[in-house]
């Protein structure tokens, strides 16, 4: 290392692009311009196209599979069935119960049965048509409650109960002065990511394979693929390719093992891309739920007890249903101080499409129910619904019904109080408004006739990260070196960027910790150790902490060099590529590092969690995040049309790492919550999906999305890096119940099932008879309501 005398420099300048700044997405402009390379755009010379034959039946025995005709087709290179799976014939993240390719039995419509590799996607598709599968069709079990009954056919050897979690807390006999009961139902929601399942498998010529893939968790894919290929994991190398959204739907495998099998079998690269309809069959969905609730309270509005019976339809295979069942049980009472609770959470196997992870993961369904119950209770008590919530809000130091102490921060009271204080949107005279500001919008259905406004509140919470004893960790390697005369930091992790903005977060942390602006976040692959899943809102926390700690170690090594060289004993820092001591620049990094590279690896494990005991008690979660929402809606009660006027939200995020990205997460989460409240549902009949397209499965458009007012709290979690909390899921949880609460407020209807669509509102107003419109009342008010009054 050369020694140059310390020069006088201007006072230290700050490193740009660190935490707290709205650093832009590197992939933002290419995505908007259509130039971003998604996994569906992958291409290599000489590649083949894979395709999957799927079961048309939700439940059937397979008598035989006849592949010769397909094999004989020109351009077909391989036709594979379960017999060709080299290793473990089943896969699954929690319980390996799902066949890589079905044998003997299919348990849902769309289950993979055979594979084809061909020189053209169309050849592959035509070849699928030539595979003959002889099915003995069986009666499907299409309802979770039916699956529970003794005489239902057993879909798996273990029976139809996939998981049951009971939470028993306090006095089972507790009696209350005021009781409300309710039944609630949540339809099956889809993640509706835009990039279909896709990837490219390239054989390495030595028996191994490289897979370029869209996923949420490279290593859990790698383990499962290797098991089924009967290869050691190091022979199955995964690299993340451009991911077009995930929301939980890419946590399970789709075409990973299939593409690798075809590639190894043909010794050619094989690409697979699902079409949209196939995609609906190719990933898990949000669990539909039926929930019965009973809340007891004192006359002055303190909760006495909560009883709940939750029934989830897990579909044909386990996926992450275990954890969803546990989550639902632990969050069933909401973020409230509940002295006595009896929660039964049931997860059933059926012949419906498998359900698993989706943004909110078990918290979404119960939040819809417990918040409806709180409103019902408030009404019965004659209390303001927010006041009732404030009165029962949980606080740090209290115990959750599942026995865990509520950690600091848990600002339920504060976020509720604040969301109420956010100014209400103006209510303009309906007549004469811009069409887009009326229910029905540009469909031109009203000038304000029949329009009623409603306001609703909800608060929700959820765990961040994996729970209940799971060893949840992330690995990061940080290297610092001089390239072209400039210090450069490279960040290596296997953490999946799925659109949420982790690439910015990683770079921002490295800049802040190492004082170097030029940070390169390398493509994620399995050469670096596992980063865990990009789910449960956990990556900023867990991978963020790994990156931060690895940076700290690198920094410490630099400081050692500085101390050795300059004998500095003051506290050192790095800003904008310079070593700073006592506000003074003492040397540029370049001089300290010279040609050397400093590299450190950290595996960060968060605080241990513990499984629940048989009474559903235990320290199951390590961090909780809270958000409150207020929805203002307008309903055209005559046509059943709804416009969400505005959502206001307060969320505690611990620390804002990237304000713009945070805003994006909150708005996107609310859009998904709005979708579940008003339109999104996979319709299933006899186990078959009826609307596997984006023409028939409706998600909100930009015209459906209201403005969002947000207020962010930064109450640092003492255990988390920078005090941050996961932010991805909370916006989705309470936005749905807030919108439905506002609809109830506008219509006086029960609305116990979501999504609430026009047919649920039109023609069935349950207003007491004395409020019937009078003949001489305003011209528009009476349209169509009298005759349609039907008690259902």
């Amino acid at each position, binding site marked *: 290392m050369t020694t140059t005398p310390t020069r006088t420099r201007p006072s230290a300048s700050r490193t740009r692009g660190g935490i707290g700044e709205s650093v832009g997405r590197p992939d933002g402009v290419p995505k908007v311009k259509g130039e971003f390379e998604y996994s569906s755009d992958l291409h290599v010379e000489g590649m083949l196209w894979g395709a999957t034959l799927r079961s*048309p039946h939700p439940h059937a025995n397979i008598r035989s599979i006849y592949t010769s005709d397909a094999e004989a087709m020109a351009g077909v290179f391989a036709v594979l069935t379960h017999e060709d799976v080299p290793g473990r014939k089943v896969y699954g993240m929690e319980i390996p119960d799902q066949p890589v390719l079905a044998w003997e039995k299919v348990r849902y419509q769309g289950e993979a049965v055979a594979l084809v590799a061909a020189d053209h996607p*169309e050849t592959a598709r035509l070849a699928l048509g030539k595979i003959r599968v002889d099915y003995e069709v069986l009666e499907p079990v299409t309802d979770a409650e039916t699956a529970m009954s003794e005489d239902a056919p057993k879909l798996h050897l273990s029976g139809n109960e996939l998981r049951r979690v009971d939470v028993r807390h306090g006095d089972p006999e507790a009696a209350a002065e005021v009781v409300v009961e309710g039944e609630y139902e949540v339809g099956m929601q889809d993640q509706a990511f835009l990039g279909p399942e896709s990837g490219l498998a390239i054989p390495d010529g030595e028996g191994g394979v490289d897979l370029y893939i869209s996923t949420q968790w490279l290593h859990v894919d790698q383990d499962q693929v290797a098991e089924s290929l009967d290869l050691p994991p190091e022979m199955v190398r995964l690299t993340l390719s451009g991911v077009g959204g995930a929301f939980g739907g890419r946590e399970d495998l789709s075409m990973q093992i299939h593409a690798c099998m075809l590639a190894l079998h043909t010794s050619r690269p094989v690409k697979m891309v699902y079409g949209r309809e196939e995609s609906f069959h190719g990933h898990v969905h949000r669990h539909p739920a039926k929930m019965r609730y009973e809340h007891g309270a004192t006359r002055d509005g303190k909760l006495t007890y909560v009883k709940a019976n939750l029934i989830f339809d897990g579909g044909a295979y386990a996926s992450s249903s275990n954890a969803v069942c546990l989550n639902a049980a632990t969050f069933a009472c909401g973020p409230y101080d509940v002295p006595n609770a009896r929660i039964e959470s049931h997860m059933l196997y059926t012949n419906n499409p498998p359900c698993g992870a989706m943004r909110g993961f078990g918290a979404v369904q119960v939040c819809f129910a417990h918040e409806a119950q709180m409103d019902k209770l408030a009404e019965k008590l004659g209390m303001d619904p927010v006041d009732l919530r404030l009165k029962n809000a949980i606080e740090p130091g209290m115990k959750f019904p599942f026995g865990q102490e509520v950690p600091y921060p848990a600002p339920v009271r504060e976020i509720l109080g604040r969301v109420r204080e956010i100014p209400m949107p103006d209510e303009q005279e309906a007549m004469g408004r811009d069409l*887009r500001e009326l229910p*029905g*919008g*540009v*469909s*031109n*259905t*009203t*000038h304000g*006739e*029949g329009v009623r406004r409603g306001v609703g509140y909800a608060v929700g919470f959820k765990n961040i990260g994996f729970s209940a004893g799971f060893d949840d960790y992330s690995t990061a390697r940080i290297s610092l070196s001089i390239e072209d005369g400039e210090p450069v930091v490279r960040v290596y992790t296997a953490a999946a960027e799925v659109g949420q903005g982790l690439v910015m977060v990683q770079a921002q942390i490295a800049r802040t910790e190492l004082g170097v602006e030029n940070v390169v976040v390398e493509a994620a692959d399995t050469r670096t150790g596992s980063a865990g899943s990009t789910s449960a809102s956990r990556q900023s926390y867990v991978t963020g902490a790994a990156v931060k700690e690895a940076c700290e170690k690198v920094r410490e090594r630099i400081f050692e060099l500085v101390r050795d060289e300059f004998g500095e004993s003051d506290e050192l820092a790095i800003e904008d590529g310079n070593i700073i001591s006592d506000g003074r620049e003492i040397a540029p990094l370049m001089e300290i590092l010279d040609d050397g590279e400093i590299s450190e690896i950290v595996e960060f494990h968060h605080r241990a969690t513990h499984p629940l005991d048989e009474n559903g008690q235990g320290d199951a979660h390590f961090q909780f995040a809270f958000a409150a929402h207020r929805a203002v809606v307008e309903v055209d009660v*005559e*046509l*059943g*049309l709804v*416009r969400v006027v505005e959502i206001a939200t307060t969320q505690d995020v611990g620390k804002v790492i990237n304000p713009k990205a945070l805003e994006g997460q909150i708005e996107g989460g609310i859009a998904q919550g709005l979708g579940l409240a*008003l*339109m999104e549902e996979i*319709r299933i*009949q006899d186990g*078959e999906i*009826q*609307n596997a397209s984006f*023409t*028939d499965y*409706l998600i*909100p*458009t930009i*015209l*459906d999305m209201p403005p969002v007012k947000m207020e962010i709290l930064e109450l640092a979690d003492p255990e988390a890096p920078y005090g941050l909390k996961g932010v991805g899921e909370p916006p989705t949880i309470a936005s749905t119940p807030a919108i439905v609460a506002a609809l109830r407020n506008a219509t006086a209807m029960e609305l116990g099932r979501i999504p609430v*669509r*026009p*047919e649920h509102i*039109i*023609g*069935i107003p349950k207003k007491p008879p004395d409020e019937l419109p009078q003949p001489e009342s305003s*011209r*528009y008010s*009476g*349209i*169509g309501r009298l*005759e*349609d009054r039907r008690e259902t």
Partner: protein
Amino acid sequence: MRPYKYVRAQDVDGAVATLAEAPNAAFLAGGTNLVDLMKLEVMTPDMLVDVRRLTSDRVEGLDDGGLRIGAAVPNSVLAADHKIRSRYPALSQALLAGASGQLRNLATTGGNLLQHTRCVYWQDVTTPCNKREPGSGCSAIEGHNKNHAILGASEHCVATHPSDMAVAMAALDAFINVQGPEGERRIPIEELHRLPGDEPQRDTTLQHGELITSVDLPPVEFFSNSKYRKVRERASYAFALVSVAAALDIEDGIVGDVRIALGGVAHKPWRATKAEEALRGEPASEANFRAAADIELEDAQPLRDNAFKVPLARNVITRTLLDLSEEGR
């Protein structure tokens, strides 16, 4: 998709002649409907005869003062045409309420009229459907049928016609000009689309090889007082649950003449002639509008999931007429 032959004819005669000899061929216009259905293998023509450049793509005046719309006029162009907007506003509104900007650029007048039902069972080749496979049964009658017909359905088929444009044209007394192997015909739109009856496989009264060349709108003054209203499940980009096209002529508070057509309720754009009849010569009042709607909907036979369409249709009819009476006064 099944392999097929693609042919571009020189002129209308050539296209008609080609189809006349190919029983399993189809005309291709914008392709926004047909190609999707071919991908699903719901439709499996072995030959496509591209007609997009064969017919007029312009809106022109007729001697009688009416307008002639070429079959190849894109939906977006038709919606923006100033003569249409001022003289037949319901048509422009209907077009703009349909599909998306990109689709409307490609979709044609002829193709839009002849677009096929969105019944999910018809589109799903693994389920029985009398329209796709006569005699195999109707899956919708016992299935998810909230999007299905409440009027004019049969025990063989409860599908609805999805077009917004055709509903407006039905209200506006359009005539369809057709050229076929047997020469030219002019069909009132009312007679173009069929009810399913016991031949649900036939959507229209057109014979194989008959090409729509243009659509005529008659010169009716009060059609400038017309409106289209569409109820759908999200703010844009969704088919109608129920829609209404109406035109109203009022003099001194009395209904001189009226046209009403409904979308989303039947196998064809549903011309509400009973309601029209009940209103002619009566005071233009809310009570009368509602009563007229009730008369039309008396015959409604809702299925399990679509009873809501009855009050919905009544409310939209009433509102649209009220709106027109307000503005046409």
